[in-house]
């Protein structure tokens, strides 16, 4: 009731001189308007950037096996052979922060179609989940291979745009047969163009096929040897008996019968080169890493004091860098807007001081009829806050209108942010309190006798 009366009195007082009140709040209107517009445009820009980065695979995590070493000689990352497709399934099953995961086997070898040949950047053996992980589900042509193809090791593949250009000279590739290391693959789909990634790697120069097919029919070995298989392809002639190579090296040293009896190991069917997976959101990446580590350490029987036999790498660094940049820009613009708010606040203080002087007699009268110093302080403070909040409300409308205008005129992405509005309201009230305090305090300290006598 008391606050309401004070606020009403403040409104009425301000209405007595509407022109001056308007001019006084103009600074706040512009300041708040600028803050709102900046924050909305900034949020829009940052949102658009995030979307772009997400399409580049911002939520993607890559698990690669760790380094193997022998006699102090390290073979580099990805050389242990402990990562299995079952790991991938376990991760999908047991890590709620992971959206999807695809096992991957890499090969690099010659691809032949008719009288053309080409060595693509990468031949990936994977599952259909890979397309989802990479946010690449929309194909330019055809359909992706399915899980049954993976289970059966079917010889089907999806081509990247660069391969279509190199092998088919722009003709439709779907339904044609290409040969990879002399094994015929039917092209079921063509990927949509993606262009180069940030390292300059041509992402369209790729073939996707079921990992089982690549693993068992093409490479028959892990990535460490597959990388050199282009040269291998030229000097070894594949025969039909070679379609199912059994020359895979033993993964573990030969164990004696006693060892086997004491410590039986489950039969390991295959190892893969990496697992590519997508977290639910970039915010959940740390959680996903934690869950994956737990699952893999358990599955690989790693003791607490032993280091991981795998590496998990994320691309969040990229996301962070870019979102930090947008945040920086937004903050910079915000700082400029804040300065105009401060200037507006000084304007408020100025006018409130004038108002206190002008209304000295009123203050004296109010004191004579029983207003205490703090009542006067409250009255003037509320007046300043009302002035600022009114200005803030107008500024919100102005700023929002401004950002909408920018959206329509320049087609910039704009995001309405409730946080910006809340901040603007708080800041304008704060400006009112901070810059209204001195004049209000001055008013409250007046001597009623002096004030009544003031001409």
């Amino acid at each position, binding site marked *: *009731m008391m606050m309401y009366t004070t606020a009403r009195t403040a409104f009425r007082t301000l209405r*007595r001189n509407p022109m001056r009140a308007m001019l006084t709040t103009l600074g706040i209107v512009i300041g708040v308007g600028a803050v709102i517009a900046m924050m909305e445009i900034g949020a829009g820009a940052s949102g658009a950037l995030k979307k772009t980065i997400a399409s580049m695979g911002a939520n993607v995590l890559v698990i690669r096996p760790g380094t193997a070493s022998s006699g102090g000689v390290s073979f580099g990352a990805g050389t242990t052979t402990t990562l299995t497709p079952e790991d991938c399934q376990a991760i999908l099953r047991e890590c709620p922060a992971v959206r999807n995961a695809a096992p991957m086997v890499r090969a690099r070898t010659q691809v032949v179609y008719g009288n053309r040949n080409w060595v693509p950047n990468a031949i990936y053996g994977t599952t259909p989940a890979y397309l989802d992980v990479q946010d690449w589900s929309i194909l330019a042509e055809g359909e992706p291979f399915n899980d049954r193809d993976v289970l059966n090791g079917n010889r089907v593949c999806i081509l990247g745009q660069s391969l279509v250009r190199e092998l088919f000279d722009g003709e439709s590739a779907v339904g044609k047969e290409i040969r990879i290391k002399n094994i015929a693959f039917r092209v079921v789909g063509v990927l949509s163009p993606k262009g180069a990634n940030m390292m300059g790697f041509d992402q369209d120069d790729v073939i996707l096929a079921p990992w089982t097919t690549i693993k068992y029919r093409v490479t028959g070995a892990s990535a460490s040897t597959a990388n050199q298989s282009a040269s291998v392809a030229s000097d070894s002639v594949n025969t039909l008996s070679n379609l199912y190579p059994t020359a895979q090296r033993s993964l573990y040293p030969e164990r004696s019968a006693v060892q086997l009896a004491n410590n039986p190991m489950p039969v390991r069917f295959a190892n893969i080169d990496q697992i590519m997976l997508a977290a639910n959101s970039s915010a959940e990446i740390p959680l996903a890493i934690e869950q994956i580590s737990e699952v893999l350490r358990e599955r690989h029987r790693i003791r607490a004091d032993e280091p991981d036999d795998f590496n998990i790498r994320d691309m969040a660094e990229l996301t962070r860098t870019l979102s930090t940049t947008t945040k920086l820009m937004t903050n910079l613009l915000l700082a400029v807007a804040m300065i105009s708010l401060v200037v507006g606040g000084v304007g408020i203080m100025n006018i409130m001081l004038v108002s206190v002087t002008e209304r000295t007699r*009123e203050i004296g009268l*109010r*004191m*004579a*009829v*029983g207003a205490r110093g703090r009542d006067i302080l409250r009255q003037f403070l509320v007046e300043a806050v009302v002035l600022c909040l009114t200005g803030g409300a107008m500024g919100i409308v102005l700023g929002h209108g401004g950002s909408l205008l920018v959206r329509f005129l320049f087609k910039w992405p704009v995001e309405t942010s409730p946080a910006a509005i809340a901040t603007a309201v708080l800041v304008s009230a704060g400006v009112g309190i901070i810059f209204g305090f001195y004049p209000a305090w001055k008013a409250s300290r007046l001597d*009623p006798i002096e004030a*009544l006598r003031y001409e």
Partner: protein
Amino acid sequence: MELITLRSITKTYQMGDIAVPVLKGISLAIRQGELVALTGSSGSGKSTLMNILGCLDRPSAGEYWLEGQEVSQLSADERALLRNRKLGFVFQSFNLLARTSALENVAMPLSYGAEHLSEREARERAAEMLTRVGLADRLDHHPSQLSGGQQQRVAIARALINRPPVLFADEPTGNLDSKTSEEVLQMFERLNTEDRITIIMVTHDPKVAGHANRLIRMEDGVIQGDAPPAAEPNQKTPESAP
């Protein structure tokens, strides 16, 4: 019953190093229902005495009893509350809030110390007060739309809104012509006789002082004369005025 009792009140202003005594020991008793006029030449200390009586100022020394309460040592906030509850003020220049309706002007003191009243009750009470001073048809008029006499009556209604036992009037007719002065003074007399409100007015107009039933004359910070106005030798009664 003694409403106001002053015992050897002094007030000294410090002007740099020099102490300027303005009130030099005032002792005074005012009973309830009196209509007192306080006169004296300028510089006689009547305004200072008025400020002390009105609890706007504190005496340098002495005792001030108001309705059995020693008020000379109260803090500024306590005095503000006291002014709100027990004292009403009418000023020479009306001191109404510009661009504010008569009703709101009158209700203004209620916003300090009468928060228990609802908005409607406050307006009702203000309207009742304005009706009492004969301005029932001017509730929504702004001061600029009212004549001087009407403005002063709004001021009186404002002073009485909290039903104080004492009303202070500082040159209440100073800005009014003789006809409206007469109306305002008659209103004071009516309030004094009908509602038993003690009225203390400062004036140097003998005609105004003639309406009082007690005249206190000040000179050089002391009380020179304290008697009913008829006893004053050079008093001109309103009837004999030219």
